């Protein structure tokens, strides 16, 4: 009985050693992979960070205005031509704006020849 128990214990120890070694090796490999993935994520974040910054630069108001003036021939819109959705009139007979407030800028008129931003030396 004791011999069987001894044999069983030794076998258990052997199996445990193998299992632990297997787990340990898997852990080591996983840790390496994790480190690689983390490194890659950090690199990707770095790249995203650079791209975001580059986007801020190319989509900045200065560049947009320059492109709009040079390529599209757009100029500064007079403030009186701007409005918001809240002030648009309802479709229907009553003609009331969405928020039931008086229609703003109903009789406003933009300057006949607004000076393009580019010509003001911007």
């Amino acid at each position, binding site marked *: 009985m*004791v011999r069987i*128990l*001894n044999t069983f*214990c030794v076998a*258990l*120890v052997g199996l*445990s050693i193998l299992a*632990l070694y297997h*787990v340990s090796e898997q*852990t080591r490999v*996983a*840790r390496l992979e*994790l*480190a690689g993935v*983390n490194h890659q*994520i*950090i690199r990707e*974040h*770095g790249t995203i*960070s*650079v791209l*975001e*910054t*580059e986007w*801020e*630069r190319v989509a*900045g*108001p*200065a560049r947009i*205005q320059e492109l709009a003036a040079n390529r599209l021939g757009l100029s*500064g819109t*007079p*403030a*009186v031509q*701007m*409005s*918001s959705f809240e002030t648009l009139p309802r479709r229907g007979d009553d003609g009331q704006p969405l928020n039931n407030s*008086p229609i*703003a*800028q*109903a*009789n*406003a*008129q*933009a*300057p006949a020849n607004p000076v393009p*931003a580019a010509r*003001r*030396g*911007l």
Partner: protein
Amino acid sequence: MIERATIYQRRMVIGAVISAAAFALVGARLIDVTLFKPNAVGSDQIGRPAMARADMVDRNGELLARDLPVVDLYARPHTLDDKVQAARELAGATGAEYSRLLEGFNNTKHPYVLVARRLTPDAQDRVMHLGLPGLEFEPSAKRFYPNGRATAQLLGVTDPDGKGVSGLEQGLDARLRETATGAPVQLSIDMRVQYILASEAEASRQMFHAKKAGGIVMDVRTGEVLAMVSLPDFDPNFRQFRGDDSDHNIMAADRYELGSVFKVLSFALAMEDHTARPDEVFSIGNGYKIGKYTIHEAEHMPATLTARDVLAHSSNIGTAQIAMRSGPVRQAAFLASLGLLGSLRCELPEFARPLYPAHWGTIETATIGFGHGIAVEPLAYVSAAASVVNGGRRIIPTFLKTDADRRGAQVIKPETSAEMRELLRYVVTNGTGRKADIAGYDVGGKTGSAEKPGPHGGYQSHVLVTSFFAAFPIDAPRYIVFVLLDEPHGTRETGGLALAGLTTAPLAGRIISRIAPLLGVPQKPVTVARENT
């Protein structure tokens, strides 16, 4: 009879128990790690690369400043076979100075030589393609400002070690370092407003050939500075200045005798103390003698003016009379309550102490009444002027986003503030500020044209600092626009004149007409006739 266990058997049982306990411990740990704490092992922080400083973003989340990952390049000279060739190739790839590299490579005292700092990824690629041994790349960060010059004076810059040395980079240095791996620091700046202010100020600076120009847009309730511009500026992404580039923020680090915009404060004091009424008539004449001094007008004035018109037409003589009714003690106390006799402290590290006379007598009271004899930093003036229109409460500027109403102590009564708003509107509709009157928005404001002090005392005629202080919408002001031109010159369109009504008033009007829709300020119906005037 039960046979007693031998000593060997007892030892085996003890060994088995210890082994079983050890296995149980390992098993329990395995279960714990795999089932209950799956992320405990190797849960390294994953995210952006660790940077020295946090991002700065504007009030809408637009990026203003960020540390970008770059590398510093070091070389170990003893591993280089041909030091001359290596120095030449590295100088070509990185832009480093060839002679410095060669000297470093030949110096055996130092095992490492710094080749170049803050290499961009393409420069790093070029170095890698050289195939030289003994090179080491040290991760580093470079502060980048996507909006370049538009925010240069305000944000400031960092030194090569990533420490803020000017502007908000210095003022918020501790905060930017604390939150380097966390949330960005959100400023009160609105990049759209900042750009409009910068571009319009630059256009006016060029149009009037002014030496310097500047502007501030501030929320009068929260004290948030939405934009601050100082020209000439510089490109913060390059360390070299070109032409007349400057890193000096004139709106915070300079002090000016602002001239007639100070009349706003004199009138606020008079209205507060009831020492003058808006419809009270003052005699103006050709000059006003106080002792041995005579006060003159900048332009021809009628023989008499009501107080309202004294402000509207910016009469020095009328304002001097009104200021003298308050007296020097009361005037000094009032200006002190508005923070104009002390240093303004906010997140911006640059500030300028005010200059005012040690002896504050009658003549000083009169001249300070119309903005001469006292020099303050423009930001401090904006802070004081905001108190006049925001219901009469003190407000300290801030460059951090906040939604709270930060108005502090009551410095003038709300009724006085309302009365001043009417007077300021009158200046724009009937006075020197007419060119700031724009379609769709009721603007109130005041012009200021001050002669600059000469290098040898006295004032230089025709060498002006012109400014304009505007509040809108004037019936319930939310924003202040203050613009300044240093030494503008008249043009053919202005008849050769460079007064504020012709230079800074239209500038303020253009700025307001562009920023008001962006800021959601409600428009008022405009008639065709008025639009075409």
